């Protein structure tokens, strides 16, 4: 049998006329172009059915191509997913979102003023961190990215502590070692944020496996950006969560952009990110990330499912990164300036506020009042934080702390290096 033979007749018959072509996803609407919202799923509030938390994962898979929404454009809450939260909880959510935004505003400006080296806002995505914090138990362990500061704030963690981390000042519990916004708080069950994308996602699965191994009742939750789902960590998280039925919630925050590349580049063109769960037999939900009630309801569903030993849920939180990627970024180089303003799913704070007003539990005046109140609070706290030092002009931790915590006990070679530095 010589090689020529092995070409099959059928192949020759089936041969196409045209040569192969390489598909490069075209860049999404760029500067000066009209915003393009064709990828934004259109689902009416209340349109999506809510399965029982104990259903086989397969029965959730059609949800990968729907969008769970509770709040309609008039601020009414409708449908099976309506968590019917009491007013106090709704107002706490609104407050936490507004506080998060006020905090972001100030810290972003601080960077512009040179007082900190770097900052990342979550503007437009506040309903995610906040809504999920409300739906989780305070001691459920969270493995977030740098864009869920709202979660830490909603858990009531002191802004002062967060600011001190950003200033790398004398009160920074991370001793000035980490880039601003890479918070850590064991007390708040908030895992140390990594600068390496994705790594936290399978770590959350490991923590959840440990909790299950111990017969604990605490679950874990991990977050990852849609762009970072291309990293191995995403695959590992889904694989291990599937194999060991880990009690974990795996959240993909699809805010459309990964710095300058749109979600198509992450593989969002041919399938949704929620759909990634299907191939692993995990439950999945796709949620309007700008609708705090929908975010709450989906998270609460997944948490209850996990707590009852029905395993992991992948939640795609569909939202929009209204802010620049970070203080190092200039979105006007790669997307239309008005893309955010016209975002079809609106602004999470406005939407919840409208809902509360509709319930007769809120008003424009109270909104304005709370806004200035929070601005004051943030300013005051900021002043206190700055009194402990800023990244720009210290005071910082002494150079000798640089050699600590590399290991539990500092070995001889690090002690020598410290002496070499003369500290």
């Amino acid at each position, binding site marked *: 049998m010589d090689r020529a033979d092995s070409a099959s007749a059928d192949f020759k018959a089936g041969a196409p006329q045209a040569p192969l072509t390489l598909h490069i996803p075209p860049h999404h609407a760029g500067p000066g172009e009209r915003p393009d919202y064709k990828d934004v799923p259109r689902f009416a509030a209340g349109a999506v059915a809510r399965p029982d938390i104990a259903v086989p994962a397969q029965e959730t898979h059609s949800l990968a191509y729907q969008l769970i929404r509770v709040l309609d454009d008039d601020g009414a809450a409708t449908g099976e997913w309506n968590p019917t939260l009491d007013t106090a909880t709704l107002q706490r959510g609104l407050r936490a979102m507004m506080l998060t935004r006020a905090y972001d505003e100030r810290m972003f400006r601080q960077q512009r003023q040179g007082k900190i080296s770097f900052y990342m806002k979550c503007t437009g995505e506040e309903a995610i961190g906040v809504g999920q914090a409300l739906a989780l138990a305070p001691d459920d*362990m969270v*493995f977030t990215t740098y864009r869920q500061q709202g979660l830490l704030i909603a858990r009531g963690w002191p802004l002062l502590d967060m600011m001190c981390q950003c200033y790398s000042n004398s009160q*920074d*519990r*991370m*001793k000035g*070692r*980490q880039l601003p916004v*890479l918070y*850590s*708080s*064991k007390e708040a069950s908030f*895992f*140390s944020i*990594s600068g*390496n994308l994705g*790594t936290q*996602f*399978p*770590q*959350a*699965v*490991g*923590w*959840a*496996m*440990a*909790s299950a*191994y*111990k017969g604990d009742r605490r679950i*874990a939750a991990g977050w990852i950006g849609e762009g970072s789902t291309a990293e*191995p*960590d995403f*695959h*590992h*998280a889904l*694989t*291990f969560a599937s*194999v060991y039925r880990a009690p974990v919630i795996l959240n993909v925050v699809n805010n459309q952009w990964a710095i300058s590349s749109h979600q198509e580049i992450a593989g969002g063109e041919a399938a949704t990110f929620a759909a990634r769960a299907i191939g692993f037999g995990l439950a999945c939900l796709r949620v309007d990330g700008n609708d705090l009630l929908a975010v709450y309801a989906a998270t609460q569903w997944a948490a209850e499912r996990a707590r009852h030993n029905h395993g992991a849920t992948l939640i795609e939180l569909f939202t929009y990164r209204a802010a620049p990627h970070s203080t190092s970024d200039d979105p006007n180089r790669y997307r239309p300036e008005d893309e955010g303003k016209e975002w079809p799913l609106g602004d999470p704070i406005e939407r919840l506020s409208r809902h509360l007003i509709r319930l007769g539990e809120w008003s424009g005046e109270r909104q304005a009042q709370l806004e200035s109140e929070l601005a004051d609070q943030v300013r005051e706290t900021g002043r206190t934080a700055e009194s402990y030092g800023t990244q720009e002009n210290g005071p910082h931790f002494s150079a000798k702390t640089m050699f*600590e*915590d*590399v*290991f*539990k006990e500092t*070995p*001889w*070679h690090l002690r020598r290096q410290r002496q070499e530095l003369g500290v």
Partner: protein
Amino acid sequence: MPAMTMVQALNSAMDVMLARDPNVVIFGEDVGFYGGVFRVTEGLQKKHGEQRVFDAPIAEGGMLAVAVGMGAYGLRPIVEIQFADYIYPATDQLVSEAARLRYRSGGEFWSPLTVRAPCGGGIFGGQTHSQSVEAVFTHVCGLKTVIPSNPYDAKGLLISAIEDDDPVVFFEPKRLYNGPFDGHPERPAVPWTQHPQSEVPEGYYNVPLGRAAVVREGTAATVLAYGTMVHVARAAAEESGIDAEIIDLRTLLPLDLDTIVASVKKTGRCVIAHEATRTCGFGAELAALVQEHCFYHLEAPIVRVTGWDTPYPHALEWEYFPGPKRVADGLRRVMET
């Protein structure tokens, strides 16, 4: 005391720790029902249960990530990487996460995990079953690196590694699993039973990390070695007739520099032997430290006897392996002046 092979000693270390500490769990490819391709976890699942010793998907990076998460919870995971050659997919979780966690969190979180992996050649495993990758990890701050050379140390060091609150990469010279090996493949294999260090207590004990052992006292020259090369160095000393002092480093990081410096100051000559490729191998760091701390005592250039800077070739295994003849040549070279 029973005589154990290195496989049995390592198995015993994990058995002891599983019994002592409910937070110890073991997972890896084929480690559960089967007991590992080198049988190092044999019987542990049956004895301690599936919840504590279980098979993992073939995803070294996933295993490490999960171990970091488990460590943050409070467990002490032991992860087996089936061959050190397959640790690369886990690099990011090891280097960026396990090694950095304590530092970046200001001491709030840490990774008390142990990564076990068979290393080194001598079994005709070709380039993907023979590598010695220790230098990739000794360059990473926040990781400890251990390589035993005999059953007694293997058990004691593994217990120390498991109990250590920092991440430890524990390399097991696979050529020593079932018997010592002096680098003479042509000679009949000898069992561990005839080796004094195969006397291993059945219960708990440890060998502290960070301490080297002088395994042969000598006056002519110092040989720094670890793992399989400790046995090769002994053979080289005997065969060359050069009265070498042989130091088994046991822990590469943190390194026991004092023991090394004391010996080199005494002998004035130093040969460094490892199986890993030479350039930027751990021997480079040893040479840099020795010249720094023993400069005025050195009577000849430090010689490195190592694997060549090529992949580990399958058929030319013994031309690649730095055997007794090459170590003896190294000794002769340092004795020349």
